[in-house]
């Protein structure tokens, strides 16, 4: 297969020069290549935001829905056809703000999808308001005296909600982030990769430099140790990067659906169950 197969020739990439999103896209495409996937195997699902533009800058199936709702789209796409590789991509506002409720409840369902969050701690596309992950004191045209709300901790929240795979990457570290994405995609169940991403236009606090100075890659970490993971992610900076937690064997959302108990066909292969309907009608006759 072609090594450029995930590129989209002629795409007008709408990100600012120098944006961390370019690096993440690179990691993502490399990961897909190294996993030996074809663009026809993969559906990239997204909401709205700079991060959420990703599917328009590469080649694969894509579904670019509403701001904040991509996890619902993605869960259902995977449930409708479990043979697809489904990746939900978005920003911190998209996934943790507008989409916060789906974030929690999607994790509880454990669908077999990969969730990439480009966490730049700001609303990029709408030009620089605070996001749920913005740090206390971060000033913007709306938060004129700086953010005062307690920052949302995505990785800790995912752990508490029951995520079976939780990782954190850094846009600047293309190779390592690529590895995380690969591992997330290989994981059976919901996999979060929260990726620190510098926004060069609106976040002059959390820069490439800041991220590299305030993070470290985990080594010799026991990925199965929930308590350890929790204490790691609750600690102050520097923030650990890598696979924080992983749990195998929990049934995936599709596996819990009665629709698949007997019948393994994807939904589009099914005919209306008219015999069953006639049986139900019979049952209503006595």
């Amino acid at each position, binding site marked *: 297969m072609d090594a450029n197969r995930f590129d989209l020739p002629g795409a007008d990439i709408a990100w600012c020069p120098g944006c961390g999103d370019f690096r993440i896209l690179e990691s993502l495409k490399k990961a897909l290549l190294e996993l030996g996937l074809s*663009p*026809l*195997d993969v*559906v990239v*699902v997204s909401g*709205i935001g700079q991060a959420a533009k990703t*599917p*328009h800058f590469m*080649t*694969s*199936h*894509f*579904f*670019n*829905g*509403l701001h*904040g*709702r991509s996890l*619902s*789209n*993605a*869960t*259902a*796409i*995977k*449930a*409708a*056809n479990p*043979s*697809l590789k489904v990746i939900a991509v978005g920003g911190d506002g998209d996934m943790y703000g507008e989409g916060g*409720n*789906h974030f*929690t*409840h999607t994790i509880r*369902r454990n669908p077999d999808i990969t969730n990439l969050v480009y966490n730049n701690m700001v609303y990029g596309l709408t030009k620089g308001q605070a996001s749920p992950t913005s740090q206390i004191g971060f000033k913007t045209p709306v938060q004129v005296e700086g953010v005062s709300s307690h920052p949302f901790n995505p990785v800790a929240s995912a752990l508490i909600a029951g995520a079976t795979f939780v990782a954190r990457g850094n846009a600047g570290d293309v190779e390592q982030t690529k590895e995380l994405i690969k591992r997330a995609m290989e994981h059976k169940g919901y996999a979060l990769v929260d990726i620190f991403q510098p926004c060069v236009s609106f976040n002059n606090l959390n820069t490439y430099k800041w991220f590299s100075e305030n993070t470290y890659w985990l080594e010799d970490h026991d990925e199965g140790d929930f308590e350890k993971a929790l204490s790691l992610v609750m600690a102050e900076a520097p923030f650990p990067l890598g696979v924080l937690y992983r749990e195998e064997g929990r049934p995936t*959302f*599709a596996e819990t*659906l*009665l*629709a*698949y108990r*007997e019948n393994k*066909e*994807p*939904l*589009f292969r*099914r*005919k*209306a*169950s*008219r015999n*069953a*309907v*006639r049986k*139900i*009608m*019979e049952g*209503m*006759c*006595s």
Partner: protein
Amino acid sequence: MHFSSLEGRTDLSCVFCGAAGLGIQTVEDLLARVIVNEGLYVFGSREYMSRVRGGSNSTEIRISSSPVDALVDRIDLLFALSAGVRENIRERITPDTVIFGDRDELKEEADELGGTFVNIPLQDIAKEVGGKIYSNSVAAGFLFGILGLGLDGAREFFEQRFADKKPEVVEKNMKAARTGFDQGEALVEKKGLLDGYTRLKEKESMILSGTDAVGLGALAGGCTFAAAYPMSPSTGVLTFLASHAEECGVAVEQVEDELAAINMAVGAAYAGGRSMVTTSGGGFALMTEGVSLAGVVESPVVIHLAQRPGPATGMATRTEQGDLLHALFSSHGEFPKAIYAPGTLESAFKITQKAFATAWSYHTPVIILTDQYFVNSFRNLSPETFEFLPELPEIEKTGPNYRRYEDTPDGVSPYGIPGWGEGIVGGDSHEHDEEGHVYEDFHLRTRMQDKRMRKLEGMKREALPPTLIGPEKYETLVICWGSTLPIVREALKNLGRADTALLAYEQVWPLHSSTEEYLRKASRTVMVEGNSTAQFARLIRCETGVALSGSVLKYSGLQFSVEEVEKRLTEFLSGKEGSR
């Protein structure tokens, strides 16, 4: 003795009222089954408070020699199972109403209600049998006694219902029923009230509710994916689908909120699931952004919207037709949709299939508008009256140059899905090019907007025509939509005016092209609908310019009754009632 007014009648209206938690539902089911097995017709309709126990609910059960499917005010037999009979029941009691109840429970009420009161010592009998919970079986038995039916049906029913309970449960219920039966039988001196009713040779033995009809229609229509958040009165359809998920191969999920429901439905449809959601007004309001998404990504999603009175929480377990314009105009931006509003169980079954067909022919959201009255009412009919529409065609494989939004003469692009064929399948909530990539071009925008709106032309051509009931040549045209059809039909039949016809709509958008002609032929037009602003009348004016002569509106939370429609139409026809 008490029943002189019922002589010669072949249509009986029994009402049970009492607190939630007394097992009225069981009596309803039992009664309906036995009556149908007798070869008679039954219709039942419940009104209930938004609480789990206590309060005051009622069920009307009509028993007839001929098909019945409409709510009446008349109460022939009233079973008052607890004290505190509410105003809406009291208003319907006439001197002809025979009221049954336990005087120890009802106290002074027994004599205040009007009608003829007959004491049944429900509590005493029940206590003797084994406890208060048997009082409903006493009442049921009593009713069988006065109706002149045996108790074999009851035994069969109890055995089925309590199959997984201890055998003594059946026996105790039977004992309670038997004691009630003897008292009832004594009252009618061996000639039951149903004695003069002709029986069917071929029983019409399927008993089902509006909920069931929509649920069955969805399954027959090919539904393979349903996501919903519970909300009265729409939850029944979710429960129905969940209970048949395995045998019918439907993926069913209760979600965290309505936003998830619609976005899952759209996601599933993108990957080839034939998806639906079920909700009520407030839940639909939360879905409107997602409906707009379905519009622009051209997603075939079916939305069951069971109406209840608003605004906001309104009256959670009551009925109204107040969400028509909400269903039609909510969601930002402009895109085609279809809105159906079945009036009968048969059409609910057919129309729900049709909704899937329309959604999958035009790749756009389709709404089925029902209401609390419709989904909670039941009647019997023969399974043969349920028509199966042709199955939806299979989804074709995409070719390598597949474009999801290919611009075509009728606006409909070939529907491809990921994982089936050689093409890349895109979906995009922005304005997009034919492949589905966001692209800001003003000519493209206009072209794509035109493409999507063109689909409405085809949908208009395929719109269900309204049904004209009554004389082809009419002076006065009465119009209704959705669940009021049987009620207005029966009212007009009773009025028996040769100059008056009914035009009943079961698709309210897009309107069938015959509308204006029907209206222009009438010298007077009147809308009967269950809301306070005559929404369908407004829509008709918007589409045809024709202002109806008047409207008969109701928005109390209860459905119209046949008598009420008769009375108010008579007033209207005699010039007393204008629009209100």
